[in-house]
Structures are given as structure tokens and as C-alpha cells.
């Protein structure tokens, strides 16, 4: 059923009884052209672009839990491409291009909202590094503006721009056409659109092993409704974010340049619109925006230590709220409604991996750290290209697994091979 205002009216008049499932709940076949392990944002978008761009529709997406149960439904929904290093700027701007037309591509309103992403600067030196990044963006065709303090104040009325602030605001870098999207809608929209193109989405189906023909990966063993089952495919792709280590071990890949940590996200009670942009603090680590429902959605640093727990600890609560109310002192009285955690696949340089291999017949999409949401469209688009052509696209050719050992990290922060610093 095509979604539209007309469809809503028509169905409303019939008591909403005629709506059908957003995607099928098919039984698995024994054989597919491509299996994608992981029914999160990246896995689903990969399936969609395999089907829509490359005409490969005999595809299964295999998800252990419910669809979108990982980070696609746990993030702070920020969409941007304000990167400093060329491989990242180009890749994320491709993502922006896809975001802009995504609701139409999917016939599903993902509520992409280009409200602007503002990074604050608190020293003259930080203004310079923001300028350096803004100029990189401009040279690559990405919108960016360096704002002075007054411009920043006009954009965010509650922001403390006084000289008496502990870290006074000097200005900020604005990507005016970046913003947010509705996270769950991205998962559901990709799922529905991929499903309509013939992709089988297998929920509650857990990969418990990989099938091999000699050295070559030939599919997966799964548990479904308590029953084991083999599903074969010419190509097996893995896009499981924080669970990368877990899943790759089943394929015999014991070590990767990835560590898994927990990132907490926070939402306040819902209030009338109070901050128009996505705003980040420059003297610590905090990002905040306001959802359409009215909650302030924010987050900060990861909980450092390795974790698969999907929940974090108190120090990050204190840090994050302290930074938020240092930026917006009026928010001290606003109330935190809920916090939750997601597990992050932190790579050794803070940048992702989208590659063929590491085993024959296998493809890997991982290392998203905590920036995976904005990448969802381009990640799937590039991964689909890589799977279809057995070769990376120009946009993801730098995102190899070998770059670390070759000495070519893509290290935005210059923090070095310590995953929890990125």
C-alpha cells in the first residue's frame, strides 16, 4: 500500500482496518544471492540499495531480535557531514544527498529535518580549527558557515554566551543544511521499501555460525523459533555494529581493530520548541537537539570501558548534564526523562570500515563508533556497491581494514589507536 495523505484519509474513514503489515514476515528460503547479517539501519539500507540500484533482490536480511533493535533506534538522530578529512567529508556528503531525498525514495517519511548543526568554539584556536574544517567542507562542496558569537547567540537564545562562562563562546561552525531525522522511521522505511522490492527480512533469527565451502563463506547457520537452520548464499555481508566482534568470531575472525563500548543517550521531558539547531559544546563533549515531540535529545562521551551492556553508569550522567546546563543554564530545571545505552563498534581511528573480506565470500561493514546513524544511507549505498561489484566504490575505498596496519588511519581527532578516545 502506498503511503500518502490520501491513503490516510481513506483508511481513517474505514476505521483503519485495511492497513497491512509494513513488511512481510516471510519464511526463510534455503538460498539467497546475498545474505546480510544485521537488521539495523545499515543492513536494511544495504538491502534496499542492492535491490534498487543493483537489481539484486534475492536478498535476506537476518536480524537476531526485532528489526532496528540496535543503534538505529538508540541514537541521538544527528545527520551531518561536517568532517575534516577528505574520505569522511566525501562519504558523509553522499549520505546527505541520499538523506535529502530519502522520504521519497522510500515512500516513508523519515522526517529529515535540515535545521542546522552548530559546533561551538571556545578559544581563538578552536575558531581556527573550525575554520579549517569549514573550509575543507566548502572546498568539497559542502555548506558551512563560521559564525561569530553574536550570530551564535541569535541562533540559540538560551545559550550562555557571556564572558563569565567557564569556557566563553567565541563562535561556531554551522552546517546549515544538516540536522536530524526520525531514527526508527529510517529502519522501518528501509525495511518496508526493501521488502517491497522482494528482500526477505527475517526477524528473530539469530546467526549462530557461518557455512564454509573450503575457505569461502557460503552462508549462515541460524536459530529460528528454537530450530537450527542453514541458509546459503554466494555472498554474506556483515553489518552488526557493536556486535561485530561477536559475529566475526563465528566466522573465525578472532581479532579486529575494533572494541565495543557503551554510549548513553538522554532525553528530557517534552517542552515547546526551545532550541532550533543541533548544537555541540566545544569545551567538552556534548550534543543536543530537540525532537519534534519536544524532548531535548542529547549525549556526550562513551563510557570508555569495553561493554556490551546497553546501559551505562552514573559518571557520564553527571558529565553530560553538567555540560548541557553549562551551555544552557536555563535547562537546570528541565528534567531528564530517560536514558539508555547502545553498544558502539569503536574503531582504532574513529572512522568506519566498508570492505570486501576479510574472508572470501564475505563483506564487512563496521567501525561506526558513535556516528553510524548519519551514515546509514551512504553506508548501505557504498556497501551495496562493494557487494555487487566485489570492489569498493570510490567513496569507500579508503575505509579498508588494512589501513591501520598500513599506517594510513583516517583519524579526525588525531587521537591515535585508542578506540575509546575517538
Amino acid at each position, binding site marked *: 500500500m502506498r503511503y500518502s495523505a490520501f491513503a490516510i484519509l481513506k483508511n481513517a474513514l474505514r476505521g483503519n482496518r485495511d492497513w497491512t503489515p509494513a513488511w512481510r514476515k516471510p519464511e526463510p528460503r534455503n538460498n539467497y544471492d546475498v545474505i546480510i547479517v544485521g537488521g539495523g539501519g545499515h543492513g536494511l539500507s544495504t538491502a534496499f540499495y542492492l535491490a534498487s540500484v543493483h537489481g539484486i533482490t534475492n536478498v535476506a536480511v537476518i536480524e537476531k531480535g526485532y528489526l532496528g533493535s540496535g543503534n538505529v533506534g538508540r541514537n541521538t538522530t544527528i545527520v551531518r557531514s561536517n568532517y575534516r578529512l577528505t574520505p569522511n567529508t566525501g562519504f558523509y556528503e553522499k549520505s546527505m544527498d541520499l538523506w535529502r531525498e530519502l522520504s521519497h525514495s522510500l515512500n516513508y517519511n523519515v522526517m529529515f529535518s535540515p535545521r542546522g548543526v552548530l559546533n561551538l568554539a571556545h578559544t581563538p584556536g578552536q575558531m581556527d580549527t573550525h575554520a579549517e574544517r569549514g573550509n575543507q567542507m566548502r572546498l568539497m562542496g559542502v555548506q558551512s558557515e563560521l559564525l561569530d558569537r553574536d550570530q551564535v547567540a541569535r541562533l540559540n537564545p538560551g545559550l550562555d554566551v557571556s564572558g563569565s562562562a567557564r569556557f566563553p563562546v567565541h563562535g561556531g561552525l554551522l552546517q546549515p543544511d544538516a540536522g536530524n531525522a526520525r531514527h526508527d522511521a529510517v529502519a522501518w522505511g528501509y525495511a518496508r521499501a526493501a521488502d517491497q522490492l522482494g528482500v526477505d527480512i527475517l526477524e528473530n533469527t539469530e546467526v549462530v555460525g557461518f557455512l564454509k565451502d573450503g575457505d569461502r563463506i557460503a552462508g549462515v547457520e541460524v536459530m529460528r523459533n528454537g530450530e537450527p537452520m542453514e541458509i546459503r548464499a554466494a555472498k554474506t555481508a556483515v553489518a552488526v555494529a557493536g556486535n561485530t566482534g561477536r559475529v566475526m568470531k563465528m566466522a573465525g575472525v578472532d*581479532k579486529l*581493530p575494533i572494541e565495543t563500548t557503551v554510549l548513553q543517550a538522554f532525553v528530557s521531558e517534552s517542552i515547546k520548541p526551545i532550541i532550533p539547531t543541533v548544537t555541540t559544546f566545544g569545551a567538552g563533549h556534548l550534543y543536543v537537539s530537540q525532537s519534534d515531540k519536544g524532548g531535548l535529545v542529547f549525549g556526550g562521551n562513551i563510557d570508555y570501558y*569495553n*561493554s556490551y551492556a546497553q546501559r551505562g*553508569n552514573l*559518571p557520564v550522567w553527571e558529565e553530560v548534564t553538567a555540560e548541557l546546563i553549562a551551555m544552557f543554564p536555563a535547562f537546570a530545571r528541565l528534567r531528564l526523562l530517560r536514558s539508555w545505552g547502545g553498544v558502539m563498534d569503536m574503531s582504532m581511528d574513529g572512522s568506519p570500515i566498508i570492505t570486501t573480506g576479510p574472508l572470501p565470500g564475505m563483506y564487512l561493514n563496521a567501525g561506526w563508533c558513535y556516528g553510524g546513524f548519519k551514515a546509514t544511507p551512504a553506508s548501505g549505498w557504498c556497501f551495496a556497491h562493494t557487494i555487487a561489484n566485489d570492489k569498493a566504490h570510490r567513496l569507500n575505498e579508503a575505509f579498508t581494514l588494512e589501513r591501520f596496519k598500513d599506517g594510513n588511519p583516517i583519524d579526525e581527532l588525531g587521537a591515535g589507536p585508542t578506540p*575509546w578516545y575517538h
Partner: protein
Amino acid sequence: MRLTCPYCGPRDHQEFTYRGDASAVRPVLDNTSIDDHNAYIYDRTNPDGLHRELWNHTSGCRTHIIVERNTITHDVVSCEPVGPFAEQLK
């Protein structure tokens, strides 16, 4: 999370600095193999379950400890001292 420093006693993990996987051990000084060094800094088992990891009690006695901790439950199984005084602290 609370970690037990063998010198100072149980403390909030905030007092410690996380230094990561303790199974990553630096090759000895005269080992000049690029592969070995690459493995040391980039290869991680990243287990879901027990993880041996290094923490420095930076806001306390600055002793390094190896914590064995479950990465799914965050249960701390053990905290052992390392470093020159490891034997004395055991």
C-alpha cells in the same frame, strides 16, 4: 562500577583511567617486527564476556591493576595489581 584497588580499597571507577585490553602486550624492545607491533596495537579480541583490562588508579595511588570484568554484566571478577610492586600488593 566499583573497582578494588589493591592499595586503596574499593573505589568508584571514576578514580581510575581505563587503559584497555590487558592481553595486548608490547613486543620486547629488540623485537622490530612490524607485524608484531601492528598486532599489539590494532588486534583486539573484544570479547563479549570476561575481559582482562588494565586500569590505572590515577586519582589514588596510581597503581595499575588488571581487572577481570564481564563486558555484558559489568560484574568485576577480580582486580590484580601489576607493575614493580605487584608481588608486594598481592
